């Protein structure tokens, strides 16, 4: 935590674990008899529970979206730039809920949790989870919190997919769906990147078919490679160029294979940090959820027909240099919404940071997001 808390921070927050013991049926055909969800909330739920906003996390995210856990925490939650007093998702007006999804590795039930049937971690036996399963579990979470209808469901990237899925699966339970830097389905190239990441993990000799917990091991090398590949796709050529260029760690070429360029050492550092905090099986599971996501699938590939189910209003935002989920993919989604006559607003934000731009405040992004959420707040009398 910084020496003094910024005025627009939600401050020190504490996650809570909610236990669910009614079985949840999953898309893969399996069920979880009981499970935990770790949740953080910011702001106050109003009397008629109409000011609740659900934040859906992306691939490696979790429940800690804003504020600080303790005095030792160096960095705030992953979306602190957008959640807090006076920020686009204004915690003076909204009750914000953020969770770690099922299958995650930050407290919610996932592959590294103990399987009650065996007394050992689930590992590879943990069922494959889909975006629809997450939305279902989030609806049960809403029930538990006494929220019948979200003022908005908001997410970036994989989180945006959840915000979109919400509009189709529970059309009466959200007023607005905010889909940022996302896509209606992955391209072959997207899936290819995910497959490289999964191969990096599964081919690590410490992976042991996903039962590495039993051996007290972690497939660090694989996780690190997976993250390095992912990380490259989240940045843009220009932003990497600006940050590192061809800068060397030392002055001259060494004609060897150590990390000589700054960018190499940065990627290794990021990969290593990630491999210390993230679970390999969760990474496999989350990337599969990305690959499977395709709301048009049940409608013969016709996204507009799928969207005819939706009742909420949509805000779709893309970023000019995002090559993982390009603006064209967002436009595809917007065009299907137009064809389905859904209420949608769309803007492509000019920002140099690639896919990661959705986590970085820029004036244009902040203005639009704030204007839209301000109206959502006014609608629910906040």
């Amino acid at each position, binding site marked *: 935590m910084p020496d003094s808390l910024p005025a627009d921070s939600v401050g020190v927050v504490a996650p809570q674990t909610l236990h669910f013991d009614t079985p949840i049926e999953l898309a893969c055909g399996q069920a979880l008899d009981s499970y935990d969800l770790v949740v953080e909330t910011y702001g106050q739920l109003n009397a008629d529970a109409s000011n609740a906003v659900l934040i859906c996390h992306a691939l490696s995210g979790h429940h800690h979206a804003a504020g600080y856990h303790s005095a030792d925490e160096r960095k705030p939650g992953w979306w602190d730039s957008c959640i807090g007093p006076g920020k686009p998702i204004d915690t003076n007006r909204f009750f914000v809920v953020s969770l770690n999804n099922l299958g995650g590795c930050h407290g919610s039930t996932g592959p590294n949790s103990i399987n009650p049937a065996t007394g050992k971690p689930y590992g590879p036996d943990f069922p494959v989870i889909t975006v629809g399963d997450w939305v279902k579990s989030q609806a049960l979470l809403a029930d538990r919190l006494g929220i019948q209808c979200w003022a908005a469901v908001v997410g970036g990237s994989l989180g945006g997919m959840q915000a979109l899925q919400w509009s189709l699966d529970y059309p009466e339970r959200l007023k607005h769906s905010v889909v940022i830097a996302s896509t209606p389905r992955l391209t072959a190239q997207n899936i290819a990147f995910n497959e490289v990441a999964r191969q990096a993990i599964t081919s690590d000799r410490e992976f042991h078919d996903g039962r590495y917990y039993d051996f007290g091991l972690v497939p660090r090398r694989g996780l690190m490679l997976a993250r390095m590949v992912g990380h490259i796709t989240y940045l843009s050529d220009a932003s990497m160029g600006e940050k590192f260029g061809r800068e060397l760690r030392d002055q001259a070429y060494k004609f060897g294979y150590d990390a000589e360029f700054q960018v190499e050492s940065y990627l290794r550092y990021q990969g290593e940090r990630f491999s210390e905090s993230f679970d390999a099986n969760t990474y496999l599971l989350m990337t599969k959820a990305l690959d499977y996501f395709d709301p048009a699938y049940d409608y013969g590939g016709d996204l507009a027909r799928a969207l005819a189910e939706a009742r909420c209003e949509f805000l779709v935002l893309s970023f000019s240099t995002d090559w993982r989920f390009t603006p064209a993919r967002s*436009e595809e989604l917007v065009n299907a919404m137009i*064809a389905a006559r859904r209420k*949608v607003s*769309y803007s492509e934000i000019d920002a140099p940071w690639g896919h990661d731009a959705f986590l970085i405040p820029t004036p244009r992004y902040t203005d639009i997001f704030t204007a839209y959420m301000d*109206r959502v707040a006014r609608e629910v009398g906040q």
Partner: protein
Amino acid sequence: MRPDLEIIQQWIQPGYHVLDLGCGDGTLLDYLQRERGASGFGLEINPEHITTCMSRGVPVIEQNLDTQGLGNFDDGSFDTVLMTQALQAVRRPDRVLDEMLRVGRDGIVTFPNFAHWRLRWGLALSGRMPESEALPYKWYNTPNIRLCTFKDFEALCRQKGIRIKSRRVVDGQHQNSWLARLWPNLLGEIAIYRITRENEQ
């Protein structure tokens, strides 16, 4: 209410699905949504305008007519396509008109008349590009790159098989004066045209 909005709203039936090209800050769509129960979208490229639309709950899509056209809209998917004070700012107004009447059953267009007497007078007298309330720019920084007169517009419509269903001519304050009705091309500053395809009713 602004007189031009008053005129336009008369042509919007309750529940109409409308597309507003260059919707600005969304004033017109906001009004049509609230007063006429219309649905639809605005297209806009100005960032401040887009933000204002979002703030007032007007669905707005960031889309550049010059570079992106209307290819993402299906044939006949709107009851009316509006374009107020934007025709003169697009690169190919002729193509935009075609597209308007492809995606909409009819269209409503307003633009400044370059044959208005004050502009003619200004050019004749000073020999310099005229400026007016409707055209408040210098020749080098104006967004209005395709200026035309009412006669030009109507000639283009004839050539394209576009039928003019109604025309109201107003002055710079959108007032509908009897003189402007009498000599529109000389005295009218802005015209509000309602157009459709020749074979449409």
